């Protein structure tokens, strides 16, 4: 049905999904993805942007290896067995384990006792290491989920709308934290979002998807380093993005 190419040392993420369909309850099929092709360079931070319900999460699930019922091929960066750092829409921390245990459990056995002080302090979690997830706010739980994804030193980082349902200032604080931990040890990253401002702040490249069945409408490259992206620059980027994709997507 599909080939999950993982062999060899590949630097970039290659996605080539010819077709992905779901069977609906009334017996018909709903085509979700059709000829979805894109690549993400090594250590590049890419954002997938598209209307809600267009198949962004489905794409991510295929990349995570949670859905293998599709036609096409994907190739993850890194060695044969790419390590994936995943941040799900919900934090998905184990409620019966502390923050630190949650993070350490994701790390492969030989490195499990590695020093995480730096990671926890960058994410402002130093004092919460022994807290249970139920004692954390959503924002803190998301930080713990990000810590878990980065603690494994992943070959690729996959994020599924990690900042939704947070108030804007908390979300913004988290975006800065994500950037600072990510830039300490850059890795190929792919983030799904429907928030254009967020994409413009974080991404090197924005991959714009169409309505269902999703395919790539276009790419929007941002070559400017992130520390030069002040409010003025971001507003300009936003304008040029909207000019390029005028009428294609619903602006936020």
């Amino acid at each position, binding site marked *: 049905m599909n080939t999950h190419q993982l062999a060899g040392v590949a630097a970039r993420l290659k996605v080539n999904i010819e077709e992905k369909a779901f069977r609906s309850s009334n017996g018909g099929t709903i085509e979700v993805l059709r000829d979805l092709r894109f690549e993400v360079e090594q250590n590049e931070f890419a954002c997938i942007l598209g209307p809600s319900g267009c198949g962004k999460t489905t794409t991510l699930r295929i990349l*995570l*290896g*949670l859905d293998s019922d599709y036609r096409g091929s994907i190739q993850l960066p890194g060695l044969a067995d790419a*390590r*994936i750092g*995943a941040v*799900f829409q*919900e934090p*998905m921390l*184990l*409620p*019966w*384990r502390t923050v630190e245990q949650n993070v350490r*459990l*994701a790390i*492969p*056995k030989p490195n499990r006792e590695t020093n995480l002080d730096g990671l926890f302090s960058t994410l402002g979690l130093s004092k919460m290491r022994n807290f*249970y*997830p*139920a*004692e*954390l*706010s959503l924002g803190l739980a998301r930080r713990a989920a990000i810590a*878990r994804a980065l603690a*494994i030193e992943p070959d690729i980082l996959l994020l599924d709308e990690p900042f939704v349902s947070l108030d804007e200032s908390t979300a913004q604080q988290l975006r800065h934290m994500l950037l600072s931990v990510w830039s300490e040890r850059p890795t190929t990253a792919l983030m799904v979002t429907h928030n254009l401002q967020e994409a413009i702040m974080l991404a090197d490249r924005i991959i714009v998807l169409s309505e269902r069945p999703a395919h790539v409408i276009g790419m929007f490259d941002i070559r400017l380093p992130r520390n030069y992206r002040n409010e003025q620059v971001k507003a300009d980027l936003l304008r040029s993005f909207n000019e390029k994709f005028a009428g294609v997507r619903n602006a936020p």
Partner: protein
Amino acid sequence: MVLLSFGALVVAWHLGATIWPSRSFPAPLLVLQTFISETTSGDLPYNLGITLCRVAASFVLAMLIGSVIGVLLGSHRRADEFFNPWVILFLNIPALVIIVLAYIWFGLNEAAAIGAVALNKIPNVVVTMREGTRALDPRYAEMAQVYRFNALDRLRHILIPQLQPYIAAASRSGISLIWKIVLVVELLGRSNGVGFQINLFFQLFDVAAILAYTLAFVAVMLFIELVVVQPLEHTSTRWRRSAA
């Protein structure tokens, strides 16, 4: 409060026994005397110990086998459809029938006794654990898959914590059911244990001794509940109590 409640029961019992004195209804003091004499002779501790060992062995066996079958049935719908009638059948076979058949088929030995008790409890464990498995959150399993948890970690950190309330429920009902069945098993085909002793005293019409043994056994089970089960539950649900 608990002590007061038990105290009142003992007083009522004492009053009843003084108002209607009878050999078949001994006063609490007499039961206590019998308890002490049976303890000093070593009979009571010995038989109690034997019975407790049987309870423990049957309990462990029933929980292990029942949990494995329950989790398998809960996670494989087709297997569940096929085996569900078996589960219902075994749920409804009277304990006595299983015990008698086990003794006939496997002889009057320890393995048959413990096996028969476990077999009585297994269907209950299966049903409880099957419910628990159906209620598992698949997203935790997906998280474990993405982060490549090994089999042992999945068991320890994903499966068992989610099944914990069901394990606790099955254990609770399990212990009380098992120790009652163990007494029957001992009465029918063993030459020691509390059940055997009670049968012996029944033939001698020695109600004081019957009550002494029963109360001693209940006290031990109460002790296990208070000192082992409740603190264990307390630690394993620690994460639940504090919400943000």
